[in-house]
């Protein structure tokens, strides 16, 4: 017979069993939910990681002490690291210009605002960015760090510089073309007048010979002795013999001079308006001749020009661009020679040569100037890099030349250091495309 106590215990045992079953069921449900949640979470993490890694915007998470905590692929590129492990723990301040950290990333500063910030990558390359920072908080609202979102605007900035440069060149070009046009007409009639004067002088010289014969006969005949004496006196006074020898020479020199002016004016017009801004078959030797004519005043007082222009096929390029490249290299060479001559009076030489090398056209601009120290060789094509004194160089010339040759024309621009000192810039442009163009 069951006692009340046994009945109570039995009921409690029975309920305990049911509780165990209920708990098992709950555990099973929770395990399933947990598994589903974990799967979803992993998928979400994978998705977000992929998005983060493929963002073109650099995402850099910075801890409260300013140390890099996380960084995405674009961030690694911006800061110059190869892998996240290299970047983590490094101070973000080491990638900013002095004062920028306090200015843009402190709570009192520009958190939340968008600013143009320059990041300095490992190795020193500087990148312009549009950067916004935000505070990172934990689930209790406590600040645990900052996230920097930086979009690289180097290309945009470069395009702005190029545009300004192009606009400046365009206005200078328009001005030069206008001046050239205005000069052209008087040059034309000065030249024509000189030709006319020369012909007239030749005619006069014939008349003068006839006069001499008459004077000679009259003298022999004893006619008009006084008049003949007067003619001889005037001829001696005006040094007629000298005039008859020198005037033709003076006219020839004037004619040569005006022809030279005409050549320069023509070159200026061609330089200012090289034709299309699209690629077209171009005679590079002609481009070089034009540019050397225009740039003559830049180098003629410091260096002798040596030209060795080989026979070249036409090359598909933008003539105006190549004008600019040659001009920049020649002006650079002139400046280097001028600088060197301050300490070494040896005569300056700028040598411009062209040749065909396989399927490339090669243009060399060589000078015997100061040369480029080994440690600066890597930087000469960087925008804004210059060793020239303030006001003389903008640091844009070689950078622009590099972009034109390499990016716009698929060529190469290299800097060599000749044994005898100085610098040689070598341009290599592919000629394959022009053949395709001709065939078309």
């Amino acid at each position, binding site marked *: 017979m069951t006692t*009340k*106590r046994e009945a109570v*215990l039995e009921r409690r045992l029975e309920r305990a069993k*049911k*509780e165990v079953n209920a708990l098992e069921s*709950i555990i099973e449900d929770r395990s399933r939910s947990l598994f589903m949640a974990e799967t979803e979470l992993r998928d979400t993490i994978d998705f977000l990681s992929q998005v983060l890694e493929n963002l073109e915007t650099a995402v850099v998470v910075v801890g409260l002490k300013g140390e890099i905590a996380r960084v995405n692929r674009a961030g690694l590129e911006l800061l110059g690291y190869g892998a996240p492990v290299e970047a983590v723990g490094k101070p973000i301040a080491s990638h900013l210009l002095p004062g920028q950290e306090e200015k843009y990333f402190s709570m009192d500063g520009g958190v939340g605002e968008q600013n143009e910030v320059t990041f300095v990558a490992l190795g020193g390359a500087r990148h312009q960015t549009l950067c916004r920072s935000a505070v990172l908080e934990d689930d209790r609202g406590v600040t645990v760090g900052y996230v920097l979102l930086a979009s690289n605007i180097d290309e945009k900035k470069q395009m702005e510089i190029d545009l300004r440069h192009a606009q400046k060149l365009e206005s200078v070009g328009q001005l030069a073309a206008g001046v050239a046009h205005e000069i052209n007409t008087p040059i034309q009639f000065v030249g024509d007048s000189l030709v006319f004067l020369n012909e007239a002088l030749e005619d006069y010289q014939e008349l003068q010979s006839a006069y001499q014969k008459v004077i000679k006969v009259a003298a022999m005949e004893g006619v008009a002795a006084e008049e003949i004496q007067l003619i001889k006196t005037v001829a001696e006074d005006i040094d007629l013999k000298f005039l008859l020898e020198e005037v033709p020479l003076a006219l020839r020199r004037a004619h040569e001079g005006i022809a030279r002016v005409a050549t320069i004016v023509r070159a200026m017009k061609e330089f200012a308006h090289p034709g299309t801004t699209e690629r077209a078959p171009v005679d590079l030797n002609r481009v070089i001749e034009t540019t050397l004519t225009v740039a003559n005043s830049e180098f003629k007082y410091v260096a002798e020009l040596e030209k060795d222009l080989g026979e070249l096929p036409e090359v598909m390029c933008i003539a105006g661009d190549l004008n600019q490249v040659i001009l920049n290299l020649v002006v650079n060479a002139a400046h280097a020679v001028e600088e060197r001559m301050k300490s070494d009076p040896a005569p300056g030489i700028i040598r411009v040569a062209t040749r065909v090398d396989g399927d490339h056209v090669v243009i060399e601009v060589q000078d015997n100037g100061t040369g480029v120290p080994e440690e600066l060789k890597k930087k000469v094509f960087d925008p804004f890099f210059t060793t020239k004194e303030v006001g003389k160089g903008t640091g844009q010339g070689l950078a622009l030349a590099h972009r034109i040759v390499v990016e716009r024309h698929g060529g190469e621009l290299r800097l060599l250091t000749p044994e005898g000192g100085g610098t040689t810039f070598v341009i290599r442009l592919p000629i394959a495309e022009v053949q395709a163009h001709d065939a078309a």
Partner: protein
Amino acid sequence: MKGIIFKHFESFVVENFGDEVFEDILDSTEVVTDGPFVGPGTYPDEDLFALVGTAIGMLNISLADALYAFGVYLFDKLAAAAPIFIESSKDLRSFLLTIHSVIHVEVRKLFPGAETPNFSYEEPADDQLVMHYTSNRKLCPLVRGLLDGAAKSFNEKLVCKESACMHEGADFCTFELTFHGVIEQAA
């Protein structure tokens, strides 16, 4: 109401009055829930109120006294289950300040669907704290018991005055607390 409260109510009755009394209470109460109460489950508030109602009738004690005593008991059990909340607070006052912003947040993470009461605070002085309690369950005697249980756990002397009560028409119950520091142990 979370099942863990039902389970602690059961152990409270069993420990104080014996398992036969609890079985009698269970037998004499009509509950909505079909099946046992388990900690992680969620059950109708009415079931607990019905069980408590039966208990006070059987044991001949007032509802307020029963809830108060259960509150004191419950605090010990909850503290034992999650000692970190006690250990990470330097004193009773700072502990009480974490109930709403930390402990109840964690409870809701652990038990999705848990309906935790709402607490807001006023801090008139360093040794004073005013807690405003709002809950549809209106279990202010239980809150008083929990407060005293907490004071016991921190070994502090606490004076608690309920200056407003939802049962008397107030929008919330107000507990004016004064802290008198750690209780010196008798030599």
